[in-house]
């Protein structure tokens, strides 16, 4: 364990350092996320106003605000660019430099990325959470923060990150075959955004669709941790949801390993 820590820690540190090195990029990322949240806020505000009732499919407007911001913050910490990174490294051949090091290729990506996630958690998700709690206090006049839910949220978000990373890794391996990922990357992102509930809460969908989507890996990548934080799950359901996440984490882990062993034989480094 200590050996693993020592070997992969440098990758994590490098991940943190490169996020910080490109500061403007990072600031743009954060501001863009916030702008998106406010746009969605006004959109849903209009929906609530025109619906004429205080709640909409079990969500009050306060719930909706919490959902929008938290879903976005969760998206930031579970964000994984490994598919574009690996795609880029395959396209320009620099994956060679990764392959000549005595480390697990997937673990080295994982360590680099989680460095970035930690930064995004501290700089973005944490302030957003505090902001949410202040908002809820102003709206409802009492403190709504549940430490247990927050801890479960962190656990669930970690599982969500692992799934997101592995799914993206699998997707990145497609670059071994097609060599340029950009087009299908956009396709993938819009599908995932819809199916994971980060565009529209899954609770708003027809019952049959919601049930299906809740058992698909996409809801595990964003929706589950947010709902846990909001306390929308009873105890039994909470454990079911976490179990679903764990099972998906294992499945996509296995799948990514399987694809890797097949893909690495197909690798064709272009140029140089």
């Amino acid at each position: 364990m200590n050996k693993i820590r020592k070997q992969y820690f440098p990758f994590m540190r490098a991940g943190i350092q490169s996020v910080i090195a490109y500061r403007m990029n990072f600031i743009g990322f954060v501001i863009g996320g916030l702008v998106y949240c406010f746009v969605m806020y006004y959109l849903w505000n209009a929906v609530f106003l025109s619906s004429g009732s205080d709640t909409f499919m079990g969500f009050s407007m306060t719930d909706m605000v919490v959902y929008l911001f938290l879903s976005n913050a969760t998206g930031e910490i579970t964000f994984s660019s490994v598919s574009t990174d690996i795609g880029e490294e395959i396209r320009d051949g620099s994956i060679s430099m990764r392959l000549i090091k005595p480390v697990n290729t997937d673990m080295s990506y994982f360590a680099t990325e989680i460095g970035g996630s930690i930064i995004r958690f501290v700089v973005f998700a944490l302030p957003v959470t505090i902001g949410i709690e202040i908002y809820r206090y102003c709206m409802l006049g009492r403190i709504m923060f549940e430490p247990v839910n927050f801890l479960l949220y962190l656990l669930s978000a970690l599982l969500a990150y692992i799934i997101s990373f592995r799914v993206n890794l699998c997707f990145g391996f497609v670059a071994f075959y097609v060599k340029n990922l950009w087009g299908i990357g956009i396709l993938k992102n819009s599908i995932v955004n819809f199916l994971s509930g980060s565009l529209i809460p899954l609770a708003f969908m027809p019952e049959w669709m919601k049930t299906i989507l809740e058992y698909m890996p996409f809801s595990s990548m964003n929706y589950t941790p947010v709902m846990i934080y909001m306390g929308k799950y009873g105890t039994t359901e909470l454990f079911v949801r976490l179990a679903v996440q764990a099972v998906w984490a294992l499945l996509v882990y296995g799948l990514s390993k399987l694809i890797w062993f097949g893909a690495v034989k197909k690798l064709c480094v272009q140029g140089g």
Partner: protein
Amino acid sequence: MIYAENLRKEFTKNIKEPGLKGSFKSLFKPKKEIVVAADDISFHVPQGEILGFIGPNGAGKSTVIKMLTGILTPTSGSCRINGKIPQNDRKNYVREIGVVFGQRTQLWWDLPLLETYTVLKEIYEVEDSKFKKRMQFLNDILELQDFINSPVRTLSLGQRMRADIAASMLHSPKVLFLDEPTIGLDVVVKDNIRRAIMKINKEEKTTVILTTHDISDIELLCDRIVMIDKGKNVYDGSLRELKKNFGQMRELSFEVDPISGLDVRKFRENIDLSDEDVIIKNDQNIFTVRFNSEAMPVGDMLNYTLSAAKIKDISVKDADIEEIIRRLYKEGAGGNE
């Protein structure tokens, strides 16, 4: 130490017909072609040898190196290095090798150089005391101290290459793969790098495989050369042997007295050699004749030139390996077609 047996690597390539129409066509119905980058390459390198791996651009040198380092999986054939098959146990295998690809870097782009080394130290599990000694040693021969605290992205090419060479040697590898380690460098840096390679080879019996386009790299470093062209092995043997077989080219340079002049065309007409065997250059006062000494002995050429012009100075150059390789390439290419 290193065994390569019948290595073959095929790539599939999409072919696009020219123009917009061709682009659309290849979007819907891509035409594929199999390109053979390496074909039936076999050689053996004993421990402690420096092997020069040469060939023209696109000959397949890098592809072979990538198979030997475990990056690519051969389509057929196999290689065994240090008793290990790179493709079977990559993680353990790469512990024992050092690799430099001249056109890429393994240094952490955004970190100070020294940090890269401490990262590599952890990855390769080098002990503290060993690491210190090693850094001292690399510092001495590669002179890294001036830029060791600068971020890698600010280094010049010469500095970066020295840093990359040092990175490949840090964990005392048994085998070094150097793919064009001197590309684009000035003489001083080249010399630095050559000394590092020589020293590590002598002191640690490190086996080295080196690809290069720089002839002096080969002359100074390599015990043996393997030459490939169009993916095929065309020569395997010592440099001396190669020179004996293909290197009967000599170069004579004369400084001519300008007043006496020299009619180049007339000079050429009076030599009974084919265009293959003689090249004449006349640059102001310096008059250079490169010729096949088997077809015309050096003495004869000297006498003839001395009689044709008033000569102030003479210099004789040994067989130029660039010329040898050019001739060998020509023959190799001819043999394939």
